[in-house]
């Protein structure tokens, strides 16, 4: 569809956009069923990282995906020709498609949008290339390396895996908010009628480069990530993928799809102040933009899925920003990174899926590893154990290095028209 023209199609005006399929790879489980069970149980997926050599690092703990067999998970993308993050994106997209009760033919019959968010793309492949170049010199640069290391490979992996062609595809590399950026792009594409469906989310694979960077910054926790805890000392790097299948409400109802949630709106902005330190007023503005986009008032929000990295600075700044918007009536605010680690570009996509599961199944996933809440983070973080709750609207935060903020609002979808959650 045109960049700026009027969308073609039978439905006039913006469409409502619903989430009907989820694909998940995470340290606490692969597939949406395992992920749901683990979130409800408050399972923590921390372990020793084995995807690269951690010898000599102050800690080797992180959140690695286990039980992922690319050869089984992927039908078309060849594992030997693609990097780990691309494999994750493609496999999670296939899972989302299956979960939505759709097949490739359905996608091929309609124009669609594929947007995958990421922090590192295939930096893991560049790590390997670096090691080879140091060992054998310039012969390490082979003909396939350019494509393999390209960041666009993630979205393209989804397109190739599902055998698609009439699809606009891009990878969004806005670091740790990229998942929410991708959801926003897919939301706009479906809402405007430019695309009939969107497969959007995020993927990242553990790699040495990013592990070394966070370790050098002193931001890596020695044992567990404890969002909003008084004694928190940092994050744990993680990997995974979260892919969401979005379609119009009309499409989902027509085919009798199981609807997790409605995407109500989103906000994007940039702190434009510091490369690595978040800025409270700007984060608050992003939250307001998202609420406005979704036509949601703060008192209608039941749950905030925070960025919640477990670093001193992020958590204090984020909670202060939330309190600017919500005052003293802050909804329960959880950090799922205690369970799944910081999955970088996948983080806000997995946060969005966790939010949708909270809406769909009526529970609030806990903030794990919690001992006592930081007085500077005075909110109910739902420590350690999930609680049943009637969750209608969730705010999902993504905050990135570079001051790139993205906030997505999800709401319960009421199947009878006129009983919208709004």
């Amino acid at each position, binding site marked *: 569809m045109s960049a700026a023209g009027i969308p073609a199609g039978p439905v006039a005006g913006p469409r409502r956009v619903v989430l009907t399929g989820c694909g998940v790879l995470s340290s606490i489980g692969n597939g949406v069923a395992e992920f749901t069970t683990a979130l409800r149980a408050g399972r923590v997926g921390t372990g020793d990282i084995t995807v690269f050599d951690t010898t000599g690092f102050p800690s080797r703990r992180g959140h690695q995906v286990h039980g992922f067999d690319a050869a089984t998970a992927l039908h078309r993308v060849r594992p030997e020709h693609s990097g780990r993050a691309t494999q994750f994106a493609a496999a999670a997209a296939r899972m989302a498609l299956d979960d939505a009760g759709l097949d490739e033919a359905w996608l091929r019959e309609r124009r669609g949008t594929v947007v995958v968010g990421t922090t590192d793309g295939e930096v893991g492949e560049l790590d390997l290339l670096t090691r080879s170049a140091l060992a054998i010199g310039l012969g390490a640069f082979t003909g396939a390396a350019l494509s393999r290391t390209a960041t666009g490979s993630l979205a393209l992996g989804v397109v190739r895996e599902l055998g698609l062609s009439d699809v606009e595809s891009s990878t969004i590399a806005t670091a740790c908010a990229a998942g929410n950026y991708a959801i926003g792009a897919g939301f706009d594409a479906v809402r405007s009628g430019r695309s009939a469906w969107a497969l959007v989310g995020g993927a990242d694979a553990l790699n040495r480069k990013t592990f070394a960077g966070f370790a*050098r*910054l*002193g931001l890596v926790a020695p044992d567990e990530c404890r969002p909003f805890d008084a004694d928190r000392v940092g994050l744990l790097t993680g990997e995974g993928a979260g892919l969401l299948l979005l379609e119009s409400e009309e499409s989902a109802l027509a085919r009798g799809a199981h609807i997790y949630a409605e995407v109500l709106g989103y906000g994007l902005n940039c702190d434009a102040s*510091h*490369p*690595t*330190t978040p800025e409270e007023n700007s984060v608050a503005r992003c939250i307001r933009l998202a609420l406005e986009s979704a036509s949601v008032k703060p008192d209608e929000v039941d749950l905030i899925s925070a960025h919640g990295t477990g670093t001193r600075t992020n958590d204090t700044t984020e909670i202060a920003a939330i309190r600017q918007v919500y005052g003293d009536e802050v909804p329960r605010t959880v950090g799922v990174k205690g369970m799944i680690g910081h999955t970088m570009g996948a983080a806000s996509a997995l946060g969005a899926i966790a939010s949708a599961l909270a809406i769909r199944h009526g529970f609030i996933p806990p903030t794990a590893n919690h001992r006592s809440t930081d007085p500077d983070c005075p909110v109910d973080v739902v420590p350690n154990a999930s609680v049943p709750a009637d969750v209608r609207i969730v705010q999902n935060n993504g905050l990135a290095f570079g001051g790139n903020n993205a906030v997505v609002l999800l709401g319960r979808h009421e199947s009878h028209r006129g009983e919208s959650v709004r």
Partner: protein
Amino acid sequence: MNVNTPVDVPAVRAIITDILELDDDELTGTSLFIEDHGADSLGAIEILSRIEKELGVVIPQDALVKLVHLDAVLDVLATAERRTP
């Protein structure tokens, strides 16, 4: 184990003036890295990192907040541990 040899003050000064891009006479014992010299949090980490590497010591990460001026760096170094290979 503690560093028993005296801290190499000129080396520390050289690292700090290089990172903060100062002339030597701009850096005093108590001129503040952030307020007076325009450094940010990454500058402090860079100072810590370079000192660790070039002087062969280990500075605990929680000392980072103390590294506000040259004298404070020298104080931290006085109790820093040598790197073990």
